[in-house]
């Protein structure tokens, strides 16, 4: 547009004019390749990070943030994405679905970020995803909920960096039946997350020829658990526990007090003790029990170079705690998902030659086209398989035994054990 073809006055400040002249002269002096690079936008790629900074998810949010910043620093040091730096814009969602949806709107319409990323708690994901779909902004969640793969969400919502609860739970059944026992009593929180465990594990155990002899649902408002333990049937060979929230430490301690030295085999999800020091007083009885881990908290004897690289970049010691404070235990089993998701975003944006919001649909298609993710610095948790139809990634699962106050991996469930038939094909939905 020139001043001649409009009646509106065009105001150009002296500073602006000088800048334009200087840029023009500079461009003329550059070699051809550099000029081409300059022709592309050098604006940063802006990623809206929906952080649980306050509310029930705050402990996770802090570590999600730390992992995210480490991954972005690394990506930027290696030249960014498509030659552009990556900028993280953080906004607290209070771990609340209403605020979560508002934050997605804020990213899309005010900050005008390219994508939204990083949500963990399922209710926040489910509350926010409809708005992401309507605003047509790619929404990369790191939640491990089954909501994405179940088909409840939409084509703009993806989970390419962390496996979902259905595949995790299902992969545990063969190990439990072969090594611990056939008769299982499950103790789980009486809300959706616990019900997912109940339903998926019960089905998987039955398929293995095992038996669920007791189901003990604990109301979310409970603060003392002693009255639930006598309900455990006598024939129980294995206790399967998965608890979350502020009462978990009390739960585990009271379980230890109830059983004393003669307990059945105990198998738990590390969610029960995520970000909790295993050497906390009262947890001694956990020695010899087993845990699912999404990512091994402690450095293993056969440590991979990828794990070493990841820990160094995030600032983690060999016990999965912050280098500067060994008491600050990380949410190891979940936060690697931020690291891996950001690398998937980079891969997808490069494949789609992503330049700006107009290419968002191409980005979704590019990520849907990804299949294999090799074990690497980008995917330190293990090699993965992405299912573009269900928008869900699948990967190895770890079972560790508490030995001398540390978690030692005793079994790695392969990807094949985690697969299940597709429940949705998002690629049939229009973009």
């Amino acid at each position, binding site marked *: 547009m020139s001043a001649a073809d409009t009646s509106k006055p065009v105001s150009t400040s002296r500073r602006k004019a000088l800048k334009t002249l200087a840029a023009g002269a500079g461009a003329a002096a550059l070699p051809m390749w550099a000029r081409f690079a300059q022709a592309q936008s050098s604006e940063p790629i802006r990623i809206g990070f929906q952080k649980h*900074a*306050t509310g029930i998810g705050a402990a996770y949010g802090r570590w999600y943030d730390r992992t995210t910043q480490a991954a972005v620093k690394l990506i930027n040091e290696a030249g960014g994405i498509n030659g552009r730096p990556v900028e993280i814009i953080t*906004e*607290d969602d209070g771990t*609340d*679905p*209403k605020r979560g*949806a*508002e934050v997605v*709107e*804020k990213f*899309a*319409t*005010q900050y005008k970020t390219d994508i939204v990323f990083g949500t963990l708690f*399922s*209710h926040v994901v*489910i*509350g926010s*995803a*409809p*708005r992401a*779909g*309507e605003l047509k902004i790619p929404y990369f969640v790191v939640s491990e*909920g089954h*909501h994405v793969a179940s088909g*409840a*969400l*939409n084509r703009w919502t993806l989970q390419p960096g962390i496996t979902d609860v259905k595949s995790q739970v299902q992969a545990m059944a063969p190990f439990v039946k072969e090594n611990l026992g056939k008769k299982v009593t499950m103790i789980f929180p*009486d*809300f*959706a*997350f616990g*019900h997912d465990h109940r339903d998926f594990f019960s089905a998987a155990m039955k398929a293995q020829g095992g038996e669920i002899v007791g189901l003990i649902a604990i*109301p*979310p*408002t409970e603060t003392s658990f002693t009255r639930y333990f006598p309900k455990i049937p006598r024939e129980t060979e294995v206790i399967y526990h998965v608890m979350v929230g502020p009462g978990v430490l009390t739960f585990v301690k009271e379980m230890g007090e109830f059983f004393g030295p003669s307990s059945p085999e105990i198998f738990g999800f590390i969610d029960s003790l995520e970000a909790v020091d295993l050497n906390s007083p009262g947890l001694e009885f956990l020695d010899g029990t087993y845990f699912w881990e999404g990512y091994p908290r402690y450095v293993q004897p056969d440590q991979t170079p990828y794990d070493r690289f990841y820990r160094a970049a995030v600032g983690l010691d060999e016990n999965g705690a912050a280098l500067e404070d060994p008491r600050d235990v990380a949410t190891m089993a979940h936060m690697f998902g931020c690291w891996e998701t950001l690398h998937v975003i980079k891969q997808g944006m490069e494949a789609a030659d992503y330049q700006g919001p107009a290419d968002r649909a191409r980005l979704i298609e590019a990520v849907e086209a990804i299949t294999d993710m090799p074990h690497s610095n980008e995917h330190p948790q293990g090699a993965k398989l992405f299912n573009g139809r269900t928008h869900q990634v699948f990967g190895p699962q770890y079972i560790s035994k508490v030995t001398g106050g540390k978690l030692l991996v005793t079994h790695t469930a392969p990807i094949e054990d985690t697969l299940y038939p597709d429940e949705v094909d998002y690629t049939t939905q229009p973009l």
Partner: protein
Amino acid sequence: MSETARILALHAGLVALLLVLNFVLPAYPQGNLARIMVLASYAIGYNVLFGYTGLLSLGHAMFFAAGMYGMGLSMRHLGFPAGPALLAGLGAGAALSLVVGLLALRTAGVAFMIVTLMFAQAVYLAILLFGKYTRGDEGFVIPQADRVLAGIDLSDPFNRYFVALALFSFCLFSVLWLIRRPAGRVLVAIRENEERARLLGYDVFAHKLGAVVASGTISALAGAFYGLLFGYAGASFAAVQYSILPLLWVLLGGAGTIIGPFIGTLFMFYLIDLTSGLTSAYMLIAGVALVLLTLFAPQGLAGELRKRLWRWLP
């Protein structure tokens, strides 16, 4: 200008201003204002009971949730289209408020607060208990394709704003009409002096029950529209936090004023939205602002306006 004309001009002017804003606002404030109008409708419902009748409920989230789940569950499990689903939400709210009113109004004062709080907690836990149908704390998505009302796609930001404005206007003018009628005057009389109202021969229980039902039903209507407009129903909307919020909005905006709930909701929304961008301790800033307002404007923003400027403000 007569008092009635002034009152009409003010409230119609507010609605007209909100209408114009839909055409000029950028996307983000447009979306925010749509939310604020639905939440303000909830606060208007709350104000009928708290501001005009003088009954402090700590459990209004149950009515909001009754509307949201009445609408959402009937769509999800019974295949209702949006219109009948909204009516189901409205019906659920009306029925629940009638039952709660009949029981809770046997108490007064602090006991009324505790009974409503307990009822709301029971509703919240019931949503978790029937997780098979409600998906418990996770909640569920109301699919975009189903969110069409009389041929209007409610997921479109422009349409959503209009529908939110229609709801807000309906609630605003209904309550304005109510409190200017003799029945509304009786509610205010009960608030000011219940014994005297009884002495004058008014059926205080019936009027209070009417206020609980009107308040609960308007709250449920807001809940049903919130779910439908924003595509999600979840148990967090039934939690105690969502019973406290309308109290805060009404207190801030001005209890016992018609536009107070809107002002309070708008103020709180932007207080949190703006301060959360500045610091992670934004709840502290919000808290300090609330304390200051309570100290220096104890009647809320619209209440102060009435005290100092517009004595005719209803």
